[in-house]
């Protein structure tokens, strides 16, 4: 990011927090509806270790879930990219996963997989699969046809075509899907932590705070989840900068 852009970014953040703080103070909003940023900071500062422990638990749920989802999707997507009939046949499943509200069936998942981590990680992985699969299929199909012929001209095996040509070609769309899935995965983790009869994770303490009518604690978990999401987006961005430095999207535009 250029220095001037960084300056505007920081200014935007400061104004956002200031307006937020101002509205809550001025309109005297109830704590449960919206908490002042300053109060989130002080709630967090009262017991930072407690909140950080739960941030770490949620981060693990999201991280493990997304890693499983990505691995499954790349394998699944590679098969679908090579086999159009199967791609068509798997559309109902993928669309169903995408459109069905996971909030509604989380209880059934918990009943099936038990309380705690297994259900949470499953849900994170399950809901993020479609975006990764679509990205893999589209990306692998977009591999340069001339390069594919070149590989064919020396009789390259399917594994090598996949590894050296199709997978790198799928990276740009996979990163786009990853940005989207980080938000989705975090939401799925937070909500399922609150529903999976567990005591660990931001969602679990958020739910308890809500039940106990503790607005300050609830909003502090929301704030922690948001910061976790920003950090995760930043990690994706860094990985993208590094792995896609050859791609047009990562080059500075010559036209201002």
């Amino acid at each position, binding site marked *: 990011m250029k220095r001037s852009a960084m300056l505007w970014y920081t200014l935007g953040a400061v104004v956002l927090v200031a307006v937020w703080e101002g509205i809550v103070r001025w309109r005297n909003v109830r704590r449960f509806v919206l908490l002042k940023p300053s109060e989130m900071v002080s709630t967090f500062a009262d017991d930072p270790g407690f909140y950080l422990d739960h941030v770490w638990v949620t981060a693990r749920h999201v991280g493990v879930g997304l890693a499983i989802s990505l691995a499954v999707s790349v394998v699944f997507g590679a098969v679908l990219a090579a086999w159009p009939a199967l791609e068509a046949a798997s559309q109902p499943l993928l669309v169903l996963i995408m459109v069905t509200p996971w909030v509604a069936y989380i209880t059934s998942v918990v009943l099936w997989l038990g309380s705690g981590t297994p259900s949470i990680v499953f849900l994170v992985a399950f809901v993020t699969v479609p975006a990764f699969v679509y990205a893999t299929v589209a990306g692998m199909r977009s591999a340069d046809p*001339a390069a594919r012929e*070149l590989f064919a001209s020396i009789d390259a095996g399917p594994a090598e075509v996949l590894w050296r040509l199709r997978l790198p070609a799928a990276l740009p769309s996979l990163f786009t899907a990853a940005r989207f899935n980080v938000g989705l995965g975090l939401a799925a983790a937070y909500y399922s932590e609150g529903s999976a009869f567990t005591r660990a994770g931001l969602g679990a303490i958020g739910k308890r705070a809500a039940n106990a009518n503790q607005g300050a604690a609830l909003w502090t978990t929301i704030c922690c989840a948001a910061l976790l999401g920003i950090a995760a987006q930043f990690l994706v961005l860094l990985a993208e900068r590094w792995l896609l430095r050859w791609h047009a999207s990562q080059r500075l535009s010559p036209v201002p």
Partner: protein
Amino acid sequence: MLRAVEGLANTTRRAPATTRILCHDDALTRGSLPSAKMGRVSIRGVAKQFGPRAALGPVDLDIEPGSVVTVLGPSGCGKTTLLRLIAGLERPSAGLVRLGDEPPLAARHGKRIGFVPQSPALLPWRTVEANARLLQDVNRGANPAYLPDAVELLERVGLGEFRDALPHELSGGMQQRVGLVRAFALGAPYLLMDEPFAALDEITRAEMRHLLDELRGGTGATVVFVTHSLAEAVFLSDRVVVMSARPGRIVGDVAIDLPRPRTPDVEDDPAFFAYETELRRILREGLQRSVAAG
């Protein structure tokens, strides 16, 4: 003592590229490869249909080992199809293609075909050097015993400084030079080139054909080159085969008897113009005949 050994290591590493390529040439003639007919391309009654449409032939063509044959024809005449049939990327609807005495699929399997596509088809995530090595790196098991040094080849085409650059940092001509090096780095006995300079400007095109001729000298490879440029055909070839409009048939076969090695000034020679004129006449006749027939 140590220094002497180091010196020796250095000299081996820096052996001139021509020596390397001659080594590879030796391997070809020594019979370590499948056949004594290595390098010959035979095409017998080959025709290709795409659905109801006839795209090519039937075509008969014999190409001598180590020679450069250009297939010249109007666009859409099926010359690219002919090249793809030789490369085994397409199966003929009728007839037989042999490289040496093996079918194209076997030649592909043994990495004996260096293919240069129309677009450079460089992998954008690989550096120039890694792109030049691509055909060496893929399907390694089938590599020949002697592989030309990709870095030396890059230096010969003037891209030594750009080894670590990414393809998008190169001009179109430079990218196609990497495409040539990638094919030559395979040390293959057959080089099949599909209008590789078609997208380049006239000045770069001329530069590229001179460079290609220089790279090829000494490799002993059989080259089949597809183009619609008369100057390219005359400059590069031992023989030019002219095709009619679709469905392509061979309507002319001209031996280019210009001395080798050829230098760029051969293009100012009256004999060069005479060949161009003759090829243009055959092309025109081929077109008229197909218009009359169609």
